């Protein structure tokens, strides 16, 4: 996007005419889109019209064919009975009645006997059945005033001697019915043509049926005979006679241009309605059988294309609005071009600075250290939009993990510069393998105070973890308390110190703690707990602790877990401060055990016992022994050492503690007089208290508490070895 804007800007600066060309180009494009859309839509609507017409015509064709076939079936079902009745002229009345009785569309039925067939009935005889007020009636209608032999159907039937549909004709007054007659010649037993049977079918209902629910408001349908006579007409008032006549003439005009569409061979013509001058579409189709009538459907272009017109109007208006907007923007842009250009430069410069600051921050962060046996460290710094002043660091030097986290008050370039200064101090301290975290923090404090005109300070935590012993020495300068992760998450106890950079003389003190294997440490900056959601609520410590308690212990998975938890809380809310996480897991080396081998030397004096026990306690914690085992080991060792002090008369006692992860071995060596604690008999525990000897109990306890207890005298030394399976 920025690239596009840049190129447009360049375009403007290079050529003045460019602006006009751009506007014209935009307008042209707009026009092109509109046109394409217009034609596409038109075409679609045209297809729609074709489909509608096809459906209309097919439906109407079906209706009319069905009607005709019904009538023909009625006739053929009755023709045999009429032939039987020919021998008794009067029974023809009943036959005529039966003919119309079962066809609801039959309005009348006549049996027009050929002249002089029945001498007793005179020349003409024509029984006629009809419906009147829902009643079936029958009468003889031939006479002076009605000579059926003069009718067109009769003479045609005589001439062709086959059944056929006659032309439709109006019948009666109020209502005028549109009738059509199906005529069928009837022969007597001798094969002589005896009568013409006619079935009058009422087609008046078709006028309405064909034109019910037209798809387009003014479209209409009708049926004409081959000769162009209307079989059914659109309802009164729907279409002018002039239009109808014109359309019928058009269909008959063999010179008119027409297209034949689709597999059901529908004729299509366009014409201009003479009544209103509108362009109209005519679709028509002839019945594939006698009487060869034609069904037709007319729709007006105006209505077919109505959707595209209203749409085009909208598109046009929108396009116009878009064009105007474009013009406005360009005009404004041109006006402010220079000013904007300069502002952009300024912005770019600031942005460049921010980028540099961000780069400093990013590059100062430590490279990941390979996960070694017993140690995994993972840090994550997610900068806010504006560069904040978070930092973290870790590195292993001389068997110790140095790790730190900090948050500088302030943002941007000054903060990132201070950050790099702090990290430099930390790394210099690591290089000289400084062991006192308080001294490092003190250095940082003084350095910041010395060159701090802007009053920035940093909350900072630094820890040095001895990977061999699990001893953690740390110093906290006003930073959020790190969290210890064991079975649960709990705060690491820290002294309340001022942040670094506030008072140059502030005395920072170090603290110590021995981490049991499997212990995790989690450090964070306040960007975590102060992350806000859309409702401006803070993520808070409670959520963090909950996430940590339920979270995995592997640092990189843990950080991922915490980050996801924060994100799910904040949702889409913008991150306002750097979020920094640092997780450490101090663990047992591969195989799940920690090697231990250390030797303690004490003066042979009871007052040394407590110091000795403290060291053993630490060793037990380091290799992850539980409290009960630890106490048992302490007690066993205390008892044997007290025994040595009391009886061997040595100056010094050396205690070597070793462990391979399975067995905890204590080797107590002294140079005193030979003394075998394994020789005194065990006290009799069944004796009542009063009968018990005092003494021997300590050794007994030590033996009971250990799995191996042996004594040897070697090179002038008493060597006592105790082993406890762990």
């Amino acid at each position, binding site marked *: 996007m920025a690239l596009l804007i840049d190129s447009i800007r360049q375009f403007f600066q290079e050529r003045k005419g460019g602006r006009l060309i751009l506007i014209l180009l935009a307008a042209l494009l707009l026009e092109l889109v509109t046109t394409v859309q217009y034609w596409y839509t038109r075409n679609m609507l045209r297809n729609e019209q074709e489909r509608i017409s096809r459906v209309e015509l097919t439906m109407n064709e079906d209706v009319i064919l069905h009607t005709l076939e019904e009538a023909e079936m009625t006739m053929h079902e009755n023709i045999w009975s009429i032939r039987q009745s020919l021998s008794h002229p009067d029974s023809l009345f009943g036959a005529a009645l039966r003919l119309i009785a079962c066809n609801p569309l039959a309005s009348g039925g006549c049996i027009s006997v050929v002249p002089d067939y029945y001498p007793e009935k005179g020349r003409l005889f024509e029984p006629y059945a009809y419906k009147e007020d829902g009643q079936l009636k029958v009468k003889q209608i031939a006479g002076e005033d009605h000579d059926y032999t003069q009718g067109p159907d009769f003479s045609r039937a005589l001439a062709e001697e086959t059944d056929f549909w006659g032309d439709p004709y109006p019948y009666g007054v109020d209502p005028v019915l549109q009738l059509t007659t199906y005529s069928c010649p009837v022969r007597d037993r001798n094969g002589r043509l005896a009568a013409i049977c006619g079935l009058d079918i009422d087609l008046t209902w078709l006028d309405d049926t064909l034109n019910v629910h037209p798809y387009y408001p003014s479209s209409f349908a009708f049926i004409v005979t081959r000769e162009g006579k209307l079989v059914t007409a659109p309802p009164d008032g729907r279409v002018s006679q002039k239009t109808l006549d014109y359309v019928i003439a058009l269909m008959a005009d063999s010179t008119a241009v027409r297209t034949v569409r689709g597999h059901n061979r529908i004729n299509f013509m366009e014409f201009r309605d003479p009544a209103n001058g509108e362009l109209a579409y005519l679709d028509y189709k002839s019945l594939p059988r006698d009487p060869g009538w034609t069904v037709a459907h007319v729709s007006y272009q105006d209505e077919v294309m109505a959707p595209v017109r209203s749409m085009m109007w909208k598109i046009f208006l929108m396009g116009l609005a878009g064009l105007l907007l474009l013009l406005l923007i360009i005009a404004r842009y041109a006006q402010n071009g220079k000013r904007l250009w300069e502002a952009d430069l300024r912005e770019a410069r600031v942005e460049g600075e921010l980028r540099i600051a961000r780069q400093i921050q990013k590059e100062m962060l430590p490279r990941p250290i390979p996960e070694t046996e017993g140690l995994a460290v993972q840090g994550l710094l997610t900068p806010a939009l504006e560069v904040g002043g978070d930092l973290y660091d870790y590195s292993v030097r001389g068997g110790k993990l140095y790790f730190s986290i900090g948050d500088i008050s302030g943002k941007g370039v000054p903060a990132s510069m201070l950050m790099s200064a702090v990290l430099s101090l930390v790394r210099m301290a690591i290089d000289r393998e400084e062991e006192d975290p308080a001294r490092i923090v003190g250095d940082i404090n003084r350095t910041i105070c010395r060159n701090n005109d802007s009053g920035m300070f940093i909350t900072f935590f630094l820890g040095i973890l001895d990977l061999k012993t699990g001893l953690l020495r740390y110093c906290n300068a006003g930073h959020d308390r790190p969290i210890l992760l064991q079975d649960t998450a709990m705060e690491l106890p820290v002294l309340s110190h001022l942040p670094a950079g506030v008072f140059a003389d502030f005395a920072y003190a170090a603290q110590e703690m021995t981490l049991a294997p499997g212990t995790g440490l989690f450090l964070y900056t306040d960007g975590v707990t102060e992350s806000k959601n859309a409702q401006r609520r803070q993520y808070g410590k409670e959520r963090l602790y909950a996430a940590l308690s339920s979270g995995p212990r592997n640092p990189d998975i843990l950080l991922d877990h915490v980050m996801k938890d924060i994100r799910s809380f904040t949702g889409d809310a913008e991150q306002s401060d750097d979020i920094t996480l640092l997780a450490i897991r101090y663990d047992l080396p591969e195989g799940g055990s920690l090697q231990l081998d250390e030797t303690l030397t004490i003066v042979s004096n009871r007052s040394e*016992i407590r110091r000795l026990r403290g060291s053993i306690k630490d060793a037990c914690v380091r290799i992850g022994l539980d409290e009960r085992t630890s106490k048992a080991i302490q007690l066993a060792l205390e008892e044997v050492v007290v025994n040595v002090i009391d009886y061997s008369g040595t100056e010094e006692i050396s205690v070597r503690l070793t462990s391979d992860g399975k067995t905890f071995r204590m080797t107590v060596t002294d140079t005193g007089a030979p003394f075998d604690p394994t020789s005194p008999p065990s006290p009799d525990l069944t004796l009542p208290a009063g009968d018990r000897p005092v003494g021997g109990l*300590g050794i007994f*306890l030590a033996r009971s508490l250990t799995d191996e207890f042996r004594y040897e005298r070697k090179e002038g030394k008493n060597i006592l070895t105790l082993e406890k399976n762990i």
Partner: protein
Amino acid sequence: MKTTVQEIDGRLVAVFSGELDTAAAAETEAALRPLFNSEGKDMVLDCTELEYIASSGLRILVNLLKKAQAGGNRVILKGVNDVIRDVLNLTGFVSLFDFE
């Protein structure tokens, strides 16, 4: 190691707090003198806060028990934790004392 002694409801109650190891034995024994000097009173040793006991500590308890039994009184251990109970089990002292 801290030991306080007081009389409650006619019983002498000693409350231990800390680790009764070899180094603490002498001072603890001194602190318990009122119990050794008592006549005709039952004794309660509150071990709720007692974290550790060495044989020297056990010896004090046994001596106290000898004294009490001689006068026909009981020594009751109260609130003994698992670590102490292990030691008492190992030494068979569990059967000598009363527990509460």
